[in-house]
């Protein structure tokens, strides 16, 4: 049973692994952080948020200051999907953003008796219905109910 935990991540309860939803790549122990299995890049924020007023003339330009702010980009090492970004001061340890109780997660889904890939969507409203089955297995994100 695979539980969609974010837009790009499953937890596979049978293997207890984090899994990349777009490509099925295993990202490591689901009792730890999925970040362990990712590739990370330390991005200068000025490359993402370009200056609108001239950085030659002004200190404050609409771009974050790289001495204050870095953007860490986390991607899947197999398919290159960017599954998370993180805005951090330079040198600050990356945040372990999610740690889940796998035993409790299994019990919760066993009690529900449903396939998480078929019942999890984005919330109320017709537009929020989606297909959480893995795209690499030939499924596409569109309404299936």
């Amino acid at each position, binding site marked *: 049973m695979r539980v*969609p*935990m*974010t*837009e*790009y991540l499953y937890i596979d309860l049978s293997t207890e692994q984090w899994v990349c939803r777009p490509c099925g790549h295993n990202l490591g122990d689901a009792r730890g952080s999925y*970040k*362990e299995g*990712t*590739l*990370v*890049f*330390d991005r200068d924020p000025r*490359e*993402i*948020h*370009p200056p*609108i*007023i*001239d950085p030659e*003339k*002004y*200190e*404050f330009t*609409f771009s974050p*200051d790289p*001495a*204050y*702010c870095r953007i860490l980009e*986390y*991607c899947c090492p197999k*398919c*290159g*999907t*960017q*599954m*998370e*970004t*993180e*805005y951090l*001061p330079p*040198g*600050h*340890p*990356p945040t*372990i*953003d*999610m*740690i*889940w*109780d796998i035993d*409790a*997660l299994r019990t919760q889904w066993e009690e*529900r008796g449903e396939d998480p890939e078929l*019942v*999890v969507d*984005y*919330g*109320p409203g017709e*537009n*929020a219905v989606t297909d959480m089955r893995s795209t690499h297995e030939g499924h596409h994100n569109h309404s299936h109910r």
Partner: protein
Amino acid sequence: MTLTTNDTGNAQGILSTQEQQWVDKFMDETTLFLGPDPEIMRSHQIHERTAYEDECIAKGVSPLETDRIRKRLAGSLDEAFEMCESMGAAPGAKWADLSVAVYTAEGDVTYLSNRGVIAFSAVLHHPIRYIMKNWKDEPTVGINPGDGFFHNDSRYGMVHNTDQSMLVPVMRDGQIIAWVGATIHEGENGACEPGGMPSGSETPFDDGLRASPIKIVEGGHLRRDLLTFLQHSTRDPKLMLADIKVKMGAVRRVIESVDRIIEEVGQEAFVAALRVTVENVEAEVRRRIKELPDGTVTFNQFMDSTLKENILIKFACKITVKGDRLIVDLTGTGPEILNRAINSPLGSTKAFMTQAILSYWWPDLPRSTGALSPIEVISEEHSWADAGYDAPVGQSLQGSFRGFSALQTAYAKLQFSAPKKYSNVIAPWFNQINDFLWGGTTQHGEQVGNLCADLNGMGGGAKAFRDGEDAVAPLFCAMADIAEQEVMEEEVPFLQLVSKRLVRDNQGFGKYRGGMGYEMIVASRGTPNWGFMTVTSGSKFSSITGMFGGYGCPAYPLSIVKGINIYDIIRKDPSQFDLSIERIMNEQPYEGGSYQSAHMGLQFDVAKEGELYMISQGSGGGYGDVLERDPELVAADLQLDRISAQVATDLYAVVWNPETFVVDVQATEAARVEARKRRIARGTPFREFIKEFVTEEPPADLLYYGSWGQDNDEEVFATHWGGQEPQRVKGKLSEIPLVMIPDRRVLKIEAQNKRIRELEAKYGETVVHKS
């Protein structure tokens, strides 16, 4: 009399029972000052059932009747809300920055108006508890039918000090059975700067009016002596008078409805309905927490400004779900800064946590104190999110809005796997006050101080299936208005020469992008005395992030052109009326102008006629990987000049025909394949990355406050000025020295003096410097 050892205590100074009684009696009879009561102020739990509530509930509660009572209250509260909105003198009132509520006798909010500021539902039990504890049986005050209590100080329970309340008891046979209250963001409050939200306050006394709960209305009559005192304490006496009356009128209207409901269903059924609503909300919140997966989501924020200088201060937040318990732990959050305005009382921080819960987690629940009640909050006093009594809180939204973002952002991860959701999966909402505050003398000769409604134009976060909405609503009020500029210009002496025009690339990029913010360019006109302020952080460090691979908002500067009169320039050459921040700052088209960019903490700055002040409203966060964005949506944004060619090429990897904006599908697919390969090629495995990136301490030249990482949140870093030079310290929050930052102008003068002496020495000039 012979005293035994037990009566006299012992040599270690432990008091005997008798001595303790004497001390207690003395203290009870000689109270010096009834300040904020920690027992009241640190609690956000609903009050225990009173004996009378028990009695009322024991007589039977009909769910149908309770529902009918709730609906009638909701209708009445919405009517009262509209009264305040239509008649209120405060700009905030006209744009929905208010709320009207019904409370239980002990002060729990049972029901809040559907429109308005939800955060009030988690903060206004504090002043009622205070009134019940201290004034009910106080012979010089008392609570009687027709009385009304006023307060504004957030140390006694308020969103922030610019809000003012009117709390009125509903009484039967001398017994309080409920309360009705109206609260409005009034703006001007007599602070050190106009507008009620001073970025420049350096002591609690700079924050303006410090009204603890006082009986302003006695037996239905407004007390003229106290009213005059309040008017005299602020810059806008007309506003004070008008809106006290407006709030009284609105509250009276709700009480009339309450009277009719009680007449119809009986007092006991009414009291029972109020109480079970609060309890039901609490029980439902516990049930919904249980639907979430057990685990911990951590989300840290870094704010880059005290509103006077750039620093980095952390707002740490770990949210743990275990069964039906949800624990919010703020340990690791930076210390309060004792001479800066950014600190927030814990009650205000919690109020905005509730704002996230009731608008972005479970918007279908009645807006009640019960919503936050079962949630546990771990926080230590004297952090900037949990300010002590002596810290200024004039711009407390800096701390409290981070409380909102902590819960709003984390919830996308907390709720993603839940099959039953009550709101959509969404990226972070913009969370800053990108707005002009203003004050001075109007064209009508009146003294005023307040703010523009553009505060309400925050960009919405992208949803998992659609772009965020541009300039849609502030995080604190889903249906607030950004107002008609022309209406404002009839009342205040400045024009928005550019209003509500989107700024290119001001986006949180992603598969779905955040809602965009717009630029504002203002200049005063026809006034002898006017000035502007801005009260925002996020000029060096983006104030919100993206979600699941999307990006956050950019940073936001303040741009100013002094020494010109734009009205003269336009009068002489109308073609110069082509204004944008980008053009003015980059081309510097006006001769003699002084062009400056700065962070967005501008203390009250005298604005001469025609000088330009320019800012941009913020963007919501983006959702998902930029390489998954539909290329047609990228082309549409390009065509509308919402994004630059650089962003479309470098971030979105889209190839298009620049004349027709037609996407080259194959070339785009190929570009995206290459972009993914480049990511894989430049990325470093996480473990190796940590070795390269992570440092033991924050960079030496950053004024950093808070924990570093998350392994030891008990230990926080701070910079303090115990001696001549700033010194970095670390330790437990309770152990680090008090933090007071020196005046930046003094530091600048010292640096310049040092340089002068260096140059004098270099060139052999002997100058006698007398101090």
